[in-house]
């Protein structure tokens, strides 16, 4: 995606006008470079027939993934979508390790929809911190098999047994005769060979790329403005569109008060009605935007049968009260022992209620979609997405055509954090499809930042009630928790009756602590807004609830919160080692308050989390300035089991710390009368550079099964900060963001 050829993907300028065209990278590159390609050895008809067969085992067909070009560069068609998490580089490392090709010679792009790429539990998504850990075995095997084919091709060419051949990055070597052949010169012959069933994998001790801080492939393009995102797509003959959404979901456009005036504005092509919105199409986007914002629309109330109606009286404050009033029994997520009995016999019981607000994604690239209907009835779509096949299926339904007639292009994401899954009214592409059909021309639609704040799918509000019993030795004997609300898994994929939605309880259920009696339930309650996945999902708030309450448990039992955690993890060596690692990383645990060299009084808080298959321990140091929290340092020990790129892990932890801190300190989507009060970053502050703490990362490779990396750094941050604030001020903040609470001077 990062080479100078990228614009070919985005510009139809060189293609004959009015022709249905295949703009896929394969078509363009194949024609342009005469690349010798492992991939295009399959005739298109055969490829289609195979794609239709149910027998495709994802991750096995080399041609779907790899093209080795004459110049030795490698095009890798990735199952995943790069959005800053470094997955393109990680895939190049893994395949390159086994192919014996330098990752720096890779060009990685997102593969089109197809059964080959369903490597995440039988699906294809970029999310859940699943990518590397899900694809790791298949990508290694893929690289190894491609290497075996290149070796076999070289054996034939050189007339020597394959066993006499070795490889060095990018070439096959025959040491005995001092001859070598570059991969690029062998690709065509290799492509004609059968794909071996298996191929030997490299010994881990010989890894040169996996486990190393390999430089990211996309950094130079992203430092020089050459990286291309959905919003940068240009298609010949396109109109540009801007929309004005109904102030509340469910309302529909009625009469226009100044239609003639708007139609007469510069560059305006037409005004179009859409479900729940109006659009203006124009030759330039700014003209479309200005016109659509000038248009005075009478909005009609929701129809009786409208779905997803935002109530006119909805407010986030009132909804918080609804959550607080909702009572159990709820659906069990974790039940161990007899909490009722243990609470009765406890020396002391404590209770607390925690909550966290709705959040916006605030990814910096506003959503867009470009739609082009082709003369053969197919549809090309360029759009930000985290799941090409799922978007393809919905786009086909919207367009009234078959899924294979929809060509999905997945450019780089300008941030995602969960924003670009299918969220019904929160995705612009159905509007773009409809507009392009209506006007018979390609249409590029961009939502303004204001429309994005109006229609973003939100991180759910959450509330949790806790009760703990403490024994005579100060140790907790029982913990009960009720998580009230719903999570995005339940909303978008459903939850079995009587079962807890895992995304509503993760971070509260199945914590590693040895509390003998535990009961965690979800009290289901539907949120009126459209809800979504947001970086670290339920963990983004639930670990805050639990870990802050655990500090209250420590305090009630007369214990230091770090020491209590160590004791509760005595039988969990992986967790205990990680907690000790973060303590050491921070220079030895000290809670405070204490005086820092700069004259401020500071304190520290600690928290642990077990998100997405990884383990994380976090310590934060805070002081107060003018009643607001200053976070100076955050120390994170992360155990992903095994790692592919330590530099990317460190970058992802930095990033997760920033977003976690942003949510802890600042962020809150407030609804009043059914509309969000903030429509841009001026009223929805996010973390600024001046608030960014130093971040110290230690990666612990415990050897456990590989876990995720994109999200796990986040959940420990809010509780570590809030626990530090409690240590500093004695004030127990149970409701985020911290900016709502005026904190007293020490």
């Amino acid at each position, binding site marked *: 995606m990062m080479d100078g050829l990228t614009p070919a993907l985005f510009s139809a300028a060189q293609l004959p006008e009015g022709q249905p065209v295949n703009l896929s990278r394969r078509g363009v590159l194949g024609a342009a470079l005469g690349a010798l390609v492992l991939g295009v050895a399959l005739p298109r008809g055969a490829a289609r027939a195979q794609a239709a067969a149910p027998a495709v085992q994802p991750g096995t067909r080399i041609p779907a993934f790899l093209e080795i070009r004459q110049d030795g560069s490698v095009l890798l068609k990735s199952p995943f979508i790069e*959005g*800053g*998490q*470094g997955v393109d580089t990680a895939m190049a490392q893994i395949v390159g390790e086994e192919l014996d090709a330098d990752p720096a010679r890779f060009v990685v792009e997102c593969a089109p929809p197809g059964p080959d790429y369903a490597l995440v539990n039988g699906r294809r998504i970029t999310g859940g911190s699943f990518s590397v850990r899900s694809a790791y075995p298949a990508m290694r095997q893929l690289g190894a098999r491609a290497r075996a084919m290149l070796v076999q091709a070289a054996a034939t060419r050189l007339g020597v047994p394959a066993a006499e051949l070795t490889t060095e990055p990018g070439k096959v070597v025959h040491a005995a005769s001092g001859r070598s052949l570059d991969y690029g010169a062998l690709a065509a012959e290799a492509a004609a060979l059968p794909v071996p069933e298996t191929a030997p994998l490299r010994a881990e001790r010989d890894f040169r790329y996996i486990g190393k801080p390999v*430089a*990211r492939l*996309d*950094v*130079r*393009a*992203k*430092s*020089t*403005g*050459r*990286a*291309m*995102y959905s*919003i*940068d797509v*240009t298609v010949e003959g396109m109109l*540009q569109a801007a929309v004005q959404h109904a102030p509340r979901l469910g309302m529909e456009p009625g009469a226009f008060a100044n239609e003639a005036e708007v139609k007469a504005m*510069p560059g305006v092509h037409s005004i179009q009605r859409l479900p729940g919105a109006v659009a203006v199409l124009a030759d*330039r*986007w*700014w*003209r479309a935007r200005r016109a659509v914002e000038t248009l005075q629309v009478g909005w009609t109330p929701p129809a009786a049968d409208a779905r997803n109606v935002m109530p006119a009286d909805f407010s986030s404050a009132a909804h918080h009260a609804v959550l607080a009033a909702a009572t159990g029994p709820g659906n069990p997520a974790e039940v161990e022992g007899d909490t009722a009995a243990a609470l009765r016999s406890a020396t002391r019981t404590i209770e607390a209620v925690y909550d966290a607000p709705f959040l916006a994604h*605030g*990814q*910096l*690239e*506003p959503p867009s979609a470009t739609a082009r209907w082709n003369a053969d009835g197919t549809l090309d779509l360029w759009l930000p997405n985290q799941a090409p096949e799922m978007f393809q299926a919905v786009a086909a339904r919207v367009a009234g055509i078959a899924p294979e007639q929809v060509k999905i292009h997945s450019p*780089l*994401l*300008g*941030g*995602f*954090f969960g924003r670009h899954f299918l969220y019904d009214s929160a995705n612009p592409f159905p509007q773009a499809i409809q507009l392009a059909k209506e006007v018979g021309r390609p249409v590029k639609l961009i939502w*303004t*930042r*204001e429309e994005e704040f109006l229609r973003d799918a939100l991180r759910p509000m959450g509330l949790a009630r806790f009760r703990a019993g403490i024994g005579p030795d100060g140790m907790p004997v029982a913990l009960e928790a009720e998580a009230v609300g719903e999570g995005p898994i339940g909303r978008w994929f459903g939850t079995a009756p009587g079962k807890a939605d895992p995304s509503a309880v993760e971070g509260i259920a199945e914590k590693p602590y040895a509390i003998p009696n535990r009961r965690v339930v979800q009290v289901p309650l539907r949120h009126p807004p459209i809800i979504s996945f947001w970086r670290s999902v339920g963990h983004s708030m639930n670990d805050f609830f639990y870990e802050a309450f655990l500090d209250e448990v420590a305090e009630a039992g007369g214990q230091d919160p770090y020491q209590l955690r160590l004791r509760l993890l005595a039988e969990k060596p992986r967790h205990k080692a990680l907690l000790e690692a973060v303590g050491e990383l921070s220079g030895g645990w000290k809670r405070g308050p204490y005086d820092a060299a700069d004259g401020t009084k500071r304190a520290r808080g600690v928290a642990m989390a077990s998100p997405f298959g990884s383990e994380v321990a976090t310590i934060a140091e805070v002081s107060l300035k003018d009643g607001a929290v200053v976070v100076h340092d955050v120390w994170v020990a992360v155990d992903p089991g095994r790692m592919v790129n330590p530099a990317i892990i460190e*970058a992802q932890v*930095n*990033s*997760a*710390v*920033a*977003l976690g801190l*942003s949510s802890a300190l600042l962020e809150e989507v407030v609804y009043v009368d059914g509309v969000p009060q903030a429509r*841009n*970053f*001026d009223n929805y502050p*996010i*973390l*600024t*550079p*001046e608030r*960014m703490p*130093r*971040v110290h990362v230690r990666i612990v490779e415990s050897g456990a099964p590989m876990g995720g990396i994109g999200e796990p750094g986040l959940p420990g941050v809010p509780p570590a900060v809030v626990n530090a604030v409690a240590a500093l001020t004695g004030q127990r903040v149970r409701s985020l963001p911290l900016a709502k609470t005026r904190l007293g001077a020490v």
Partner: protein
Amino acid sequence: MELNINGTTRSVEAEADTPLLWVLRDELGMTGTKYGCGVAQCGACTVLVDGQATRSCVTPVESVAGMAITTIEAVEQDPVGRRVVEAWVAAQAPQCGYCQSGQVMAATSLLKQTPHPSDEDIAAAMTNLCRCGTYNAIAAAVRQAAAQG
């Protein structure tokens, strides 16, 4: 209307109050400069106008006619800009990358005016938002670019 962009005179047809950002992106096809918020909050649209970091999303195009506009597309033609880009690459600063054009332009403006900035100077000049939280890497890259100047 004529604009001086990256040392070249470009003729554009746009309403006088059209933001420079959209003239660059739509009229001239220079998509390296990004739209993030449209209200001068995030800085993704930062360009240089007579060397000064300027948020082009709120800059009417007529107000910069005749002035020297530099965009990310030409940043490496400037010795300071080139140094900034190399420091960005060395620090592996970008993640999603969407804000980084603006960050690089803000850093270039800073170092052209203040070749050896203090940490306070960096904090005062580098105010663009980054949702990926690359702030520490950005600050390190600015210091490195300054050290090599």
